[in-house]
């Protein structure tokens, strides 16, 4: 297909879509009665509902079901359904050495990323709050959010680039190490620390998110609280510890939980930076490998379901906190 063909295909798809929605709107314009209203509501909602039911609800249930079966996609092999394996896939996740390492890495990611990203975001938001260059300073931290995780991984792979000590260095970090007379270091290959250097990448991306939300929360602290504290001689770090942090606690929780949810599902960084080698794989990446490389659909489904189970309580807590934030 040439580029022009593709653009034409795109135009056709968009035109087709708007023709259909336009027709729905036109056909339901004349309806005024009570029952007409019901038809209108159905016409407005049905397309979305249908897509969600077919594309989210059914596949999610199907995947959970699949996680109790062996590696082939068709779960019922033969008449007796011999492919049923019960909880074996889950047992494999928690007993196989490789997969235990994956779980451990995931735990490190989910604990460290929210804390570090929120920490940097909060400190930076406080530091630049109400300064002359606030807008520009924020934009600098903000920018990584517009970058794809693939792009971010390439940017950092370049920072971590390794060459033997006697060669010219390309990566900034090894350049620095060499400049101070140390040996160069294989940042992405040396276990177990390479996991931490991968986490740096997601912290770099997510800190901007934390900063934006927390900065808005800091600006919403009533001036009289801050003024009163200042009159009482509370300044600097104490003001931060006793006034700022308690006042933005709900936002802090929302930021922490949101980042941990995002982190659980990140797979681009591991795939681009190390390809899951050298003991760096995480759950979301392992799901991809098992499903689309090893074609072990049962294990893949179990890994996906595990992500779901892990995300679930955090999301519920996150939503309740957000509700509380909105209710203020």
């Amino acid at each position: 297909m040439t580029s022009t063909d593709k653009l034409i295909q795109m135009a056709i798809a968009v035109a087709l879509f708007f023709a259909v929605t336009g027709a729905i709107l036109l056909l339901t314009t004349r309806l005024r009665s009570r029952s007409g209203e019901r038809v209108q509501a159905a016409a407005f909602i049905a397309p979305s509902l249908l897509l969600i039911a077919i594309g989210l609800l059914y596949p999610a249930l199907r995947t959970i079901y699949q996680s109790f079966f062996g590696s082939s996609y068709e779960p019922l092999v033969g008449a007796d359904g011999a492919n049923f394996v019960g909880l074996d896939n889950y047992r494999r996740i928690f007993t196989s050495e490789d997969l235990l390492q994956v779980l451990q890495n995931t735990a490190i990611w989910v604990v460290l990323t929210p804390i570090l990203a929120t920490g940097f975001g909060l400190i930076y938001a406080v530091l630049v709050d109400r300064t002359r260059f606030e807008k520009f300073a924020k934009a600098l931290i903000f920018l990584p959010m517009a970058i794809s995780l693939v792009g971010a991984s390439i940017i950092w792979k370049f920072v971590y680039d390794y060459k033997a000590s006697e060669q010219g260095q390309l990566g900034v970090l090894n350049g620095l190490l060499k400049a101070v007379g140390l040996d160069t270091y294989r940042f992405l290959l040396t276990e177990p620390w390479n996991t931490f250097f991968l986490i740096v990448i997601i912290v770099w991306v997510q800190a901007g998110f934390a900063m934006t939300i927390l900065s808005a929360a800091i600006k919403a602290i009533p001036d009289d609280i801050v003024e009163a504290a200042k009159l009482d001689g509370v300044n600097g770090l104490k003001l931060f510890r006793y006034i700022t942090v308690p006042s933005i606690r709900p936002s802090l929780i929302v930021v922490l939980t949101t980042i941990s949810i995002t982190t659980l599902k990140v797979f681009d960084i591991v795939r681009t930076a190390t390809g899951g080698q050298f003991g760096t794989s995480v759950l979301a990446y392992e799901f991809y490998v098992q499903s689309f490389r090893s074609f072990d659909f049962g294990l893949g489904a179990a890994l996906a379901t595990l992500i779901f189970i892990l995300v679930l309580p955090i999301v519920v807590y996150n939503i309740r906190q957000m509700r509380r934030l909105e209710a203020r």
Partner: protein
Amino acid sequence: MTTTTPPAPPVRSTPAPPKTASSAARDALSGRWASAAAIVIAILWTLPTFGLLVSSFRPEAEVKSNGWWNVVTDPQFTLDSYRQVITGADVDLATYLINSVVITIPAVLIPISLAVMASYAFAWIPFRGRDTLFVAVFALQIVPIQVTMIPLLRLYVDPPFNLMPLAGNDAPGGGFYTVWISHTIFALPLAIFLLHNFMREIPGELIESARVDGAGHVQIFSKIMLPLMTPAIAAFGIFQFLWVWNDLLVALVFAGGNPSVSPLTVRLAALAGQRGEDWHLLSAGAFVSLVVPLIVFLSLQRYFVRGLLAGSVKG
């Protein structure tokens, strides 16, 4: 604000110290330390991108033999790397750039349009079971896309009732439909939820008086709601744009490695794997993929922040 009452600071019992020269000096000092810390963080955050940007303009031999910081003493710049990644036959990012555009535009327009309609009905057309249905849609936000991928892919490849397969060699639209539809599905729950929240903020009297004047829902929707919703739509639109443009997983799974449908991210990830030492290509390639989202992001930053504060974070 029940949870946020700050504990009394321990220093409260002592009387406020008078503004002396020493306290003023301490303030100034902490101010200076604060600025220094802010500058250090800002540099840490900017330097990695800056280094790659500089490298993308350096000649290949230089990029491969010494660090980018050497431009200070030996400035040499060229556009060769860009020429090579965009039009060179072995990398050919121009094709993938087109693919990204072709994927992104419908994958932003379609879910937003569907969500605006659905959220209008959820917000302003009363019908039985409305709240239950809305909560159900909202709750589906929590499903990680990984959980849906394999069965969804199966539906595309081998649909029931002898429907036309959307994936494969003679798929309609060259195979783009699977990517468009998947992005649409994954965007809908959050889009409906957010736009519904914005719509509920519009005063009910406005709708009521329009109804009294004889306007139907379709007129109210198109004449009153859409104009009022423009900022909210822009806020969600920029999010959806960034997700789709920067996405790797959906493209990998649903474009199935087919180079005529794959976006920039897929090509770039492959390049990082196969030619990890060709930093002149990787740096230029990365910036080709970054330019479009950066422009959109910087020009619509206001809406982006608004969307973030309203909770536009994909589950």
